């Protein structure tokens, strides 16, 4: 067994373990952390496929941003887990049915019939100067430029929709408009009062 195979099995084992823990562990914060571990190990697997751009982007986007926000939400929730776990037996048949259907579908589509070892060519290692990043960029911005642009516009629309859904007019906040804040003058805030000096009466009497 070469070092590559050994690394693959190590990564694969950690990945499967982490994925199992995500769905079985009770504490949601731990579940998120195991999901992070799963992303990390799959990034390692992608690195071994010489897809360093995708691997690092997975870490950057999912681990570095998406999961941070996940953590953010999960930490804020004080979830009482008992009601969530009620009715396990009642919903079990439905859950098993859905799970089996999904598994069968996946096997039918990505099973050995379509993606068997005889269908897919062995990946060949590239020479030292090969840059996966460059190749990916070239394909994205030439061959697939329209799908790429359409996808980005859809994402933009989704962003705008999400923001406009959360934007509420006329809510009670103490937000100060920065443009007004910057132009505030001393005369608006400060009043200097001139007073005559007064001698303290009691102190004068004692002396």
């Amino acid at each position, binding site marked *: 067994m070469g070092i590559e195979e050994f690394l693959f099995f190590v990564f694969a084992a950690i990945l499967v373990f982490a994925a199992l823990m995500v769905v079985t562990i009770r504490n949601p914060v731990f579940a998120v952390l195991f999901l992070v571990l799963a992303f990390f190990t799959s990034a390692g697997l992608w690195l071994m496929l010489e897809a360093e751009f995708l691997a690092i*982007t997975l870490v950057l986007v999912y681990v570095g941003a998406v999961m*941070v926000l996940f953590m*953010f939400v999960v930490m804020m929730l004080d979830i009482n887990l008992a009601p969530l776990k009620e009715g396990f037996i009642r919903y079990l048949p439905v859950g098993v049915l859905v799970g089996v259907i999904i598994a069968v579908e996946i096997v039918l589509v990505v099973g050995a019939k379509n993606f068997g070892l005889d269908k897919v060519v062995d990946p060949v290692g590239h020479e030292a100067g090969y840059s996966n990043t460059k190749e990916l960029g070239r394909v994205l911005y030439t061959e697939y430029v329209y799908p790429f642009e359409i996808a980005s516009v859809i994402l933009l629309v989704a962003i705008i929709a999400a923001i406009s859904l959360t934007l509420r007019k006329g809510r009670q906040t103490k937000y100060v408009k920065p443009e007004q804040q910057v132009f505030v003058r001393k005369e608006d805030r400060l009043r200097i009062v001139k007073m005559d000096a007064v001698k303290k009466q009691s102190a004068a009497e004692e002396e």
Partner: protein
Amino acid sequence: MLESILMLWGAIPVDLQTLLIIVAKILIIVAPLLGSVAYITLAERKVIAYMQVRIGPNRVGPRGLLQPIADGLKLLLKEIILPTSANPYLFIIAPVLAIGPALAAWSVVPFDDGMVLSDMDAGLLYILAMTSVGVYGIIIAGWASNSKYAFLGALRSAAQVVSYEIAMGFALVGVLLAGGSLNLQEIVNAQQGSLLHWFWIPLLPLFAIYLFSGLAETNRTPFDVVEGESEIVAGFHVEYSGMTFAVFSLAEYANIILICMLCALMFCGGWLSPFQGIPVLEGFFEFVPGIVWLLAKTSFFIFLFLWFRATFPRYRYDQVMRLGWKVFIPITIVWLLVVGAAVVFEIPPWFD
């Protein structure tokens, strides 16, 4: 003696040899890094002290030079206190998660032409990914401590780091456009020529934004709302003591050095001599190795970080967020268009 050592070395399998060489290189990078982290804490106290007309630490060793060692020893010998009903696993693992990425990012930083641990093609992306992973240490520390102040610090940190990462990422995209590569060595080599060929002129707004976002990412003043002493005591590490606390500050300072070195590499010509292209001076300073220039530039940026700390008051939290989202990100997007146009039209002297 030497021959027998070489014999012994030859007897080791080749795979193990490469492994040993890599480990040795890692040690050569990490050991001076941790040493400079220790002495930056002293520099910080001294610089701020002189700016405030004080003397600063001057009791341990000559002129206080042994102060970091005393500090380190003290932290090492202190008890690590586990707060009641804190989550023990996460509480201990959080500092490790903070320092791991902070050190891992250094593997792609070049110190001179060819002097780099991993000459990775996607080096810039890798650094961005590693610096963004470091926030987990802070978030987990805040949550695991079971303390309201620590939790508030963690929440602030998560929001702040995610916001400023976007501006930082866009600044890096500008550098990648100008340098034509994600590899840090090639980016530096694209700045060959003279002081005026460095990217700080064509990328000036991105340079400033990168530097300030770096301040925000490493939780330094004026963006230190994460630690904001007057508001939330010490933020996420309020429950940490002894070595666990020390590891957090190690990670913070390692990140500061990293950001400063990246500023030097990406915008100020890295290891290139500032006297390049100047007739007499270029020959006169020929003997100086490139790494000295790189370290000098890095030290200047670190000094800026300390100077900012002594100068600026803390931003209010909503102002921090506004600056990140409504000022920095729009500026970077506009300037990316400018840089893109400059690259397409091959504006001299940078892009021809």
